[in-house]
């Protein structure tokens, strides 16, 4: 049978990503140890593990971020490797070092790679040295009009003037050509002065309608680094990705090769191993610019898995154990199209406020090419302490058109009641003509969704019809023919009509 890579893996995370990691451990025959905060005693991830230990109270600082407690739990329970998932301690070099010190394998890159890529200034310099394209602009604030003129010409118009102390669009100006430069610069400086009492401004290339394109990287501890193609994650709300897909309609075969090579170069430049992601902005002319490198498994990794057939988390574990990237991974190609929707606990019809409460009804969509990575089930109480991603719905189909259809159907079939989720919002995005035609830029949501209205009348009427049926069917004397009549208190009767799964504890 398969090789035993580790004796026991502690999964230092919660919810869907902890579950995902445990699936990979189970595949490789490695027992798992879950950690959970007191709020997560009955959580899916704590139940799924072979063993589980309580690690502290709900605030992450006292549980999922408590390095000492986690290392102690690992030592006390015969753990020889820790997978950090994403978020929490996944990109914390101190944690990787604490693992090293405790002679526990950290399933991720080296602390040095993390530290380098975590520093946005240093990493840009490193990338520039390695020949990875960056957004052209000033390295620091400009001094004179001539400075701005020169840099603007180098970067190419349109350019963007930004306040150094900036934020919220104040002191920000798009400049289309050199004629406008002087006037815009002065206006931006005045605005910045008024807003921040600091008129320092700088300049970078303005990228109109950019796309967020990232490349999946896999490196081993023997110096091999490959990429597993792109993901497009342009559909974002306030810089939060919500829909991801691969392949990108904007990435041609040539561009894929160029960007993929740049991504591999970026990873090699920091001596990277494990799974990682190199993020780029892509403009309409096919120019791409390095944004940052994420030194962890990404939320959206399943779309890569569905199209390449590679189990990225299993490969991470094998790499951590010293294995080389296997041939079947090196030779894998993209096949078909995959889309992921993040199922957030939020109210899309009410300013995307986080939604909390108990999940009273839960049913996942099923069918060929549908995958659900979930951290919840019926009865889960969704709190506000943690990340609002409840689950991820991923579909795979031969073409983008078919994947969109499959996703819309699956979102409708995915039933989560008791809290709000933004499934309808995502259906509306996927059904939008601009999405279908691939006009997916990072400003898609403000551009296309700001005037969005949901017609609640059908749901109101159908819902009322369903509930009244439940009410009347509850009444013992209303079965049978039409001529019967009774009085009863519906909210009392309906009390016993709560859904399913009564916990016996």
């Amino acid at each position, binding site marked *: 049978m398969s090789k035993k890579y580790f004796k026991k893996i502690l999964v230092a995370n919660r919810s869907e990503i902890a579950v995902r990691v445990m699936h990979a451990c189970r595949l490789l025959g490695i027992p798992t140890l879950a950690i959970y905060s007191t709020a997560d005693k009955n959580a899916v991830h704590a139940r799924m593990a072979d063993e589980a230990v309580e690690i502290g109270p709900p605030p992450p600082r006292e549980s999922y971020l408590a390095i000492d407690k986690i290392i102690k739990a690992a030592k006390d329970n015969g753990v020889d490797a820790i997978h950090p998932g994403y978020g929490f301690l996944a990109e914390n070099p101190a944690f990787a070092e604490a693992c090293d010190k405790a002679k526990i394998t950290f399933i991720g890159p080296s602390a040095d790679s993390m530290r380098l890529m975590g520093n946005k200034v240093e990493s840009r310099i490193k990338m520039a040295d390695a020949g990875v394209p960056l957004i052209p602009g000033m390295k620091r604030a400009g001094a004179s009009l001539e400075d701005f003129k020169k840099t603007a010409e180098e970067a190419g118009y349109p350019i963007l003037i930004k306040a150094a102390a900036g934020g919220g669009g104040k002191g920000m100006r798009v400049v289309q050509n050199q004629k406008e430069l002087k006037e815009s610069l002065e206006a931006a400086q005045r605005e910045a002065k008024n807003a921040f009492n600091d008129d320092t401004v700088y300049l970078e290339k303005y990228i109109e309608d950019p796309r967020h394109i990232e490349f999946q990287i896999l490196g081993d501890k023997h110096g091999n680094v490959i990429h597993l193609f792109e993901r497009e994650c342009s559909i974002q709300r306030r810089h939060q990705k919500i829909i991801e897909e691969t392949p990108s309609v904007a990435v041609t075969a040539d561009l894929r090769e160029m960007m993929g090579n740049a991504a591999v170069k970026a990873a090699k430049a920091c001596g990277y191993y494990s799974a990682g992601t190199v993020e780029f902005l892509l403009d309409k002319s096919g120019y791409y610019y390095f944004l940052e490198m994420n030194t962890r498994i990404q939320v959206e990794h399943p779309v890569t898995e569905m199209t390449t057939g590679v189990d990225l988390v299993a490969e991470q574990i094998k790499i951590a154990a010293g294995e080389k990237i296997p041939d079947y991974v090196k030779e894998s190609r993209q096949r078909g199209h995959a889309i992921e929707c993040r199922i957030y606990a939020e109210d899309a019809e009410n300013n995307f406020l986080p939604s909390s409460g108990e999940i009273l009804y839960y049913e996942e969509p099923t069918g060929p090419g549908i995958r659900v990575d979930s951290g919840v089930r019926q009865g889960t109480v969704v709190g506000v302490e943690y990340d609002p991603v409840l689950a991820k719905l991923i579909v795979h189909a031969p073409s983008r058109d078919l994947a969109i259809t499959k996703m819309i159907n699956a979102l409708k079939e995915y039933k989560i009641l008791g809290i709000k989720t933004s499934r309808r919002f995502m259906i509306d995005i996927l059904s939008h003509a601009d999405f279908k035609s691939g006009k997916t830029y990072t400003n898609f949501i403000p551009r296309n969704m700001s005037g969005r209205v949901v017609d609640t009348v059908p749901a109101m009427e159908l819902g009322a019809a*369903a509930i009244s049926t439940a009410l009347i069917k509850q009444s013992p004397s209303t079965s049978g023919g039409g001529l019967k009549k009774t009085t009863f208190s519906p909210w009392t009767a309906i009390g016993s009509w709560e859904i399913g799964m009564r916990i016996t504890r």
Partner: protein
Amino acid sequence: MNYEFKYKDEKIEIGVAVIKDGTVVTIGDNLYKVNPLSAGKFLIESNGIKKTVCCVVKDGRAFVDVDAVLLELNLAVQDDSVSGGADAHAGEKDKVFAPMPGKIVKLLVNEGDAVEERQPLVIVEAMKMENQVNSAAKGKVKKINFKAGDQVGTEKPIIELELAEK
């Protein structure tokens, strides 16, 4: 039976009649045939369109999902007295009404027949469902106002009975 629900500030007034396998619900001019599937799931047909509706009730809050549109309804009023259809006539045991507007499929009795309580009297088809209407009391068939194939509303009784003495 009538209910009134509230969604935010909107009121939804509903009439419900029980039929075989489910209910027929009227909301304004709309007719819905509701078929409970399993706890929390309902199949609703209206104008030839079929939808699966998911809803759960807890602590007086009703959560609804229709094609991923989510909303929460509250029951405002339940009113037995103001009602359309057969329910409106529930006190009148000597008159047999259709449970909802439909077509008479078959009359099971003739004028002059003696009938027992719960004896089937007439079959009415509505929304492609056949519904049997039973006698609410013992008595004799005094008058039949419709014949098979007739369209029937809920205001005029199909059959009038002469009730037996108590």
